[in-house]
């Protein structure tokens, strides 16, 4: 009698938990997972080409002489270096490879190998 009573309590408890879980699942992101895409599309980031700050892009080619350098944003911007600032920046950086090359010269004339060879050279009695 008692055994049947306990089993009934367990079954009821499992059923309550399952019902609660289903409700929670449904009210949280269950809707999304089940295909209501409007829940995500409304929060996606702007598509490519849109400015995050509301469309202040300034294509380089159209603003020669007044471009403020590196402030253009989003799609539709001109290639780097097409404005005066960009061109001058390219010229300014044209010496970086020279500097890297100049600093890359390091000698390897160490005597490590010689010393090792001499240390192993037998003279007498070793």
């Amino acid at each position, binding site marked *: 009698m008692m055994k049947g009573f306990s089993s009934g309590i367990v079954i009821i408890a499992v059923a309550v938990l399952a019902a609660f879980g289903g409700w929670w699942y449904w009210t949280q992101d269950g809707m999304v997972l089940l295909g209501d895409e409007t829940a995500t599309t409304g929060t996606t980031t702007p598509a490519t080409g849109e400015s995050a700050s509301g469309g202040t892009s300034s294509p380089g080619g159209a603003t020669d002489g007044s471009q403020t350098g590196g402030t253009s944003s989003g799609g539709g911007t001109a290639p780097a*270096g097409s404005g005066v600032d960009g061109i001058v920046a390219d010229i300014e950086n044209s010496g970086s490879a020279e500097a890297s*090359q100049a600093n890359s010269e390091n*000698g390897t004339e160490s005597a490590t190998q010689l010393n090792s060879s001499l240390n192993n050279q037998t*003279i007498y009695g*070793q």
Partner: protein
Amino acid sequence: MVSKILASTVAFAALLVAVPVSAQTPPNASSFCTNIDATASQIQTRMGEVSAKITEFKATRNTTRSERWSGQEAKLSAARGNGDTKRAEGYVKLDAKATTDAQKAAVATFKNTVEVAVTTRKAAVDAAIAAYRTGVDAALATHTAALDSADAAFEASVNTALEQAKSDCAAGVDPATVRTTLTSSIKSARDTFQAARKENTLKGTRESLAATRKAAVDTAIANFKASVESAKTDLKAAFEVE
């Protein structure tokens, strides 16, 4: 009869073992003085091998250094060529943008200023490299001199020990004592030689020279950029006034 055969077999076996063992045993102390000249000759030959290694090292090092520096110069020249090309491309773009006389004049001034700055930069980089190489050469010369000196001291010490050994043998000193003394003297000379070579290192000097070179090159680049930035101000002003 059987015992005789057995005894002969044992004796033969013992002989087979004893002959190779005796052949591997170094000359015992009693024969040391008898063979002192041969020993001395062998030691001289080995010291000659040491000197030969050092000579070869010096020659190889000089060749390697020269080849590396030549390679570096070629790479530096190529890097500069690329830089010149990029700069020329920039000038073409600026020329294309300059439509008024004022703008064209501003571009011409900008180009002149930049070219002067480039010449200054290249000269500064060349000077930095030259200073580095001069320093490396001096360090190598010092290192070589110290190496030669250590080798000469080593040879002198060993020769002195050999002469002493010969003298002791001639004087009738116990050959075992002579041999022990010679071995000890040569070990001492060898340890001194080894310590001298260990202390004689280029590492710190080279790093210091490279750091100095880097600082000079960085300064040259910074000065160049500052010149270009300054020239850019006038250039932009010309383009902003329509």
